[in-house]
């Protein structure tokens, strides 16, 4: 190991290890530093990984990587305390190469990706917490961990959503409560055959299920369920800035979600294997930090690169693509031996040209749209009431369907419905 590295990467998550893998493959001396005892041991996902961005870098990765299940079933439910109205889409189209997505568990998956970076020649140092950045002549020139200082031409900040280092160096502000959500998740073990029967899954295939409504006590957020090989990832995500108004605490929301009449039978006789929590960047395009400066770039969650459009939350595929863009920009800078802000601007340019910024920009109005409380209260209730009217027969004389529908729509107000509909469509 030489005294100075070409690149030091803080954080062996998906963005960090992807960058490390590409840079080491290109022959650069790379050090990846991870504060956990192993890569992934501080990381949590819902979670589903859309494969396309990693597929480009490591073709057919899912055949060797520890993925849990390939998602072939998408479900979305409107939920009230008593009911759930569900859309269920099952298709093998969801599983085609470059369109496929996988349920993953980060502890195992991140270790695999970090090992790929190590095999490519990167040095991985786990159990090391980077406390600060070394700055010389207005340029980031390395990291400080305890008593140790390590130097590099460029430092990649891949230290996650709560990137204290990006804050310290002034690239980003303290996170604001409306920019992030807190997720709580349980891993609930079930025998594989029971799990496949309960969710009507073929072997190796999995389900992704999103919930909106009572699962967050009517506050901004949602519930999620993903099927692993022999466990379920079940959890809730709630916007931090909205919790103050909530009647329920986060642990209570989680427990009530589990006891919901639509969820309870799915986890019957299951065994809790882990309870976890993590922040999720939610403001997307509106919370982008300064992405680069002299000798430093910010990637993945640390840069807030997550798209939340309600029925779908994506962060990991963006993290991987941002790690790739950072690596390419650094290779370019290395060729010129110029690691200045001007030279590293290439990173932003590559992100701008990729799906990362295009998608973030496209959906930039969505976080604001989600701040509408009707989505989490009145609409799930309306759908529930309409369904109840359609399906419940109690011997009273029936009313025409048109008047049944209209009576529920009128409770919210037709104008509100039109307004929200237009806003929703415009933000997607």
């Amino acid at each position, binding site marked *: 190991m030489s005294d100075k590295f070409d690149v030091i990467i803080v954080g062996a998550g998906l963005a960090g290890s992807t960058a490390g893998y590409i840079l080491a493959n290109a022959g650069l001396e790379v050090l990846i530093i991870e504060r956990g005892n192993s890569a992934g041991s501080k990381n*949590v996902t819902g979670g589903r990984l859309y494969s396309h961005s990693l597929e480009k870098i490591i073709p057919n990765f899912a055949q060797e990587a520890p993925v849990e299940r390939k998602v072939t079933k998408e479900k979305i439910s409107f939920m009230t305390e008593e009911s759930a109205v569900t859309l269920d889409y099952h298709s093998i189209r969801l599983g085609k190469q470059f369109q496929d997505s996988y349920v993953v568990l980060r502890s195992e998956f991140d270790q695999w990706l970090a090992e790929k970076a190590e095999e490519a020649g990167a040095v991985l140092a786990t159990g090391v917490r980077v406390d600060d950045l070394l700055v010389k002549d207005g340029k980031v020139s390395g990291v400080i961990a305890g008593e140790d200082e390590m130097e590099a031409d460029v430092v990649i900040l891949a230290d996650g959503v709560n990137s204290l280092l990006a804050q310290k160096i002034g690239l980003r502000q303290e996170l604001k*409560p409306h920019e992030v959500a807190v997720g709580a998740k349980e891993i609930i073990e079930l025998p594989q055959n029971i799990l496949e029967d309960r969710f009507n899954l073929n072997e190796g295939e999995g389900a992704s299920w999103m919930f909106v409504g009572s699962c967050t006590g009517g506050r901004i957020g949602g519930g999620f369920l993903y099927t692993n090989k022999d466990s379920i990832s079940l959890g809730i995500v709630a916007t931090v800035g909205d919790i103050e108004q909530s009647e329920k605490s986060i642990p209570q929301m989680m427990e009530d979600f589990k006891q919901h009449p639509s969820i309870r039978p799915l986890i019957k006789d299951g065994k809790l294997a882990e309870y976890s929590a993590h922040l999720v960047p939610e403001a997307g395009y509106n919370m982008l930090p300064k992405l680069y400066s002299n000798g430093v770039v910010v990637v993945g969650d640390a840069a807030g690169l997550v798209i939340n459009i309600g029925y779908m939350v994506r962060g990991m595929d963006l993290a991987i693509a941002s790690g790739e863009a950072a690596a390419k920009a650094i290779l370019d800078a290395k060729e010129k031996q110029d690691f200045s802000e001007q030279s590293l601007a290439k990173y932003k340019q590559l992100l701008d040209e990729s799906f990362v910024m295009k998608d973030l920009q496209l959906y930039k109005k969505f976080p604001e749209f989600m701040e509408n409380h009707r989505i989490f209260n009145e609409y799930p209730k309306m759908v529930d009431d309409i369904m109840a009217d359609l399906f419940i027969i109690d011997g009273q004389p029936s009313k025409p369907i048109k008047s049944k529908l209209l009576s529920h729509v009128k409770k919210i107000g037709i104008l509100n419905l039109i307004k929200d509909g237009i806003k929703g469509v415009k933000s997607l």
Partner: protein
Amino acid sequence: MKAMTIEEKLSVDKFFVDEGNPHIIISKDAVDPKEIQKLIKACPAGLYSLNEDGTISFDYAGCLECGTCRVLCKNTIIKEWNYPQATCGIEFRYG
């Protein structure tokens, strides 16, 4: 599944507690009920609780290191918030 308390849930997790060296330090004399309620509701590990005298107590041992309390109360109740020392804290075996 039977209902579980948050303590029961945390007991299945793997922690390496940095004994005597808390990574989060709160202001013990904080009494603003609004700020206190925020933390009690938001902490996914339920580590904040209200004392009889209206102050707040906190146990860092079961911290999942999410940072929610930092985001909510950095300049009020949370005096210091850092990640635990290297090798300490929560170790997610699934994540």
